[in-house]
């Protein structure tokens, strides 16, 4: 009576041990696989969030995902001390590389030194850190070229005008390399016209300040013929001022004031489509994002890379911007 029952128990035991063996094998194999192919993690230290930065970060994340990398993103909200602490935390987490868009170079240099000591390669993106001893590479927009392209188009529109031609230049922030370089490029292009007087006003990238500066400039110089905005997000503010002064004439109309800018936001796109603005230089954020990740990958592999990598933007005018909508990161 007991024999068949004993046999059944033996069978169950065999089955259980078989299942346990399979489970254990699977567990061991998964552990050994994860140990062998450790996922590469990239620390992304962001200065603060605004439209173009979000687009740039998204491009980085997409490029990282394609390579199977994990991205740990930290945002400093414009506070250099916070960014310093965030970079230190990325070092403690032993990320494989750090991509940083710095709030302030001097404040974060110490944290970047820690990264260097921990042999974590650091890549500056969007904002160069020219005096840093820790950054392995920089990738960002070619701001001199971007400013130059916007200025070149403007110069072509103004070249037939005789006598003194006043141009308003809305600068970015005076301590921001991208803003400085855009201004350099723009001024270089406008130098082609000897009769141009450039009135430069700082705006700290702030549209409210750009609005006030444009109002004030037109009060002092009512005959301004053209406006360059270091960022095209300020074009709606310019439109407010010119509308109030009854000077918001579209491209091709009499009395039209030439307006160009750099960036590629929907503000710039919409203004160019409507004909209020003549054109904008669109930054190639997708390319910048991809290059950042490729540089990180190369440095992690121990390869040497170029130190300074810039990506020029593309100018689109009122005539061709709609057909190129797909290439404009902010257009919607």
């Amino acid at each position, binding site marked *: 009576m007991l024999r068949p029952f004993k046999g059944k128990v033996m069978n169950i035991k065999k089955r259980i041990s078989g299942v346990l063996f399979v489970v254990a094998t699977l567990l061991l194999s998964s552990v050994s696989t994860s140990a062998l192919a450790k996922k590469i993690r990239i620390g992304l230290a962001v200065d603060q*969030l605004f439209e173009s930065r979000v687009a740039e970060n998204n491009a980085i994340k997409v490029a990282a995902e394609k390579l199977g990398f994990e991205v740990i993103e930290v945002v400093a909200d414009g506070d250099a001390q916070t960014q310093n602490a965030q970079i230190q935390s990325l070092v403690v987490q032993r990320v494989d590389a750090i991509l940083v868009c710095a709030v302030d170079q001097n404040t974060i240099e110490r944290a970047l030194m820690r990264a260097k000591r921990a042999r974590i390669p650091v890549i500056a993106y969007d904002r160069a850190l020219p005096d840093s001893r820790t950054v392995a590479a920089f990738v960002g927009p070619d701001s001199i070229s971007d400013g130059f392209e916007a200025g070149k188009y403007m110069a072509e529109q103004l070249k037939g005008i005789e006598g003194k031609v006043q141009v308003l230049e809305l600068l970015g922030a005076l301590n921001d390399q991208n803003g400085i370089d855009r201004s350099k490029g723009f001024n270089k292009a406008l130098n082609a016209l000897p009769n141009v007087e450039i009135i430069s006003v700082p705006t700290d990238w*702030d549209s*409210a300040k750009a609005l006030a500066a444009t109002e*004030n400039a037109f009060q002092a110089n009512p005959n301004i013929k053209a406006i360059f905005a270091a960022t095209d997000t300020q074009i709606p*503010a310019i439109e*407010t001022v010119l509308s109030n002064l009854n000077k918001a004439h579209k491209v091709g109309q009499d009395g039209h004031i030439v307006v160009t800018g750099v960036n590629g936001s929907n503000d710039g796109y919409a203004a160019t489509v409507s004909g209020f603005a003549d054109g904008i230089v669109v930054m190639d954020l997708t390319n910048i994002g991809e290059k950042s990740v490729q540089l990180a990958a190369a440095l992690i592999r121990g390869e040497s890379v170029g130190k300074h990598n810039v990506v020029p933007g593309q100018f689109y005018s009122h005539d061709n911007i709609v057909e190129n909508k797909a290439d404009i990161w902010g257009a919607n």
Partner: protein
Amino acid sequence: MKLNNYKFFEQNWSAIAVATLVLCVFLTIASPAFMSFANMQSVLVQASVTAIMAVGMTYIIIGGGIDISIGAILFFISSVFAELFVATGSYPLALGVSLITGVLLGAVNGFLAIKFKVTPLITTLATYTIYRGMAIHLTGAQNIPVPREIGYLGNGSFLGIPVPILLMVLVTILGVYLIQKTRFGLYLRAVGSSEESAHESSLPIMRVTVLAYLIGGLTAALAGLILIARVGGLQSDIGIGLEFTVIAAVILGGTKLSGGSGSILGSVIGAIFLVLIDNGLNMLNASPYVYDTVRGIVLLVAVIVDRLSEVRKSRELIKNSAMKMRGTTS
């Protein structure tokens, strides 16, 4: 009548008014375009956002507090307005909800500051981070265009006067009335002078303080709606650093950071004064690299003038008291 006895110089705002006048005279001589009707109108429109917020901030500082989250409130309200308008297409709904939200955020600041007895600077630093973070979360840090047609608060005019100027004047009149003619104004000054004495006198400290912060929130909301209408949409950097400009306007206007006394009118003149500096630099086509230095120097001079006038007023007071005492003893 001796100039020394003239009432004008006894006002909190007399120093900033003199400084503004001197600056205007200098700019009129230096730039022919400065003293035009169009430019003066432009200056007042530009000052409206800071001035309206400065009225709210004056209440808070008179009551012994400070609110460094008002720039974040402005940004959050602008985000709520833009998102709600895009979602519903209803201007009155977006406007109403935004103003109510401003009131609530201000009241929360006041409640936290008074209820938990945490320094208002720290409390509002925390709420600054929360409000700005909430707004970034709400909008995804994206710019949201606002149709020019609904920008009446920022770009419209009534009887030929730009709406932002009318709103600034209206808020100033209401502000002066509330602080000078109501029991709330009286209690607020008492609370700001000495919270202990106000407590001993059984004044409604909680209600008065919350109301002051609530006014601060409401004025920040109104200023935000004017600003995004003028700028043409919401941008994620709106309001950053604005709290310091507003506090500077209030202090320049003769309100003491220690609380208890202050001037609404002075704060508004302070806001106009700050705009005049940039306007003047633009008018003179100054190099962009001198802006910060000139701003700093002019502000320093204004603060020194204010301090000297305070010292002079104190001396006058001591002299008058001594004369009165001599009169009663003889």
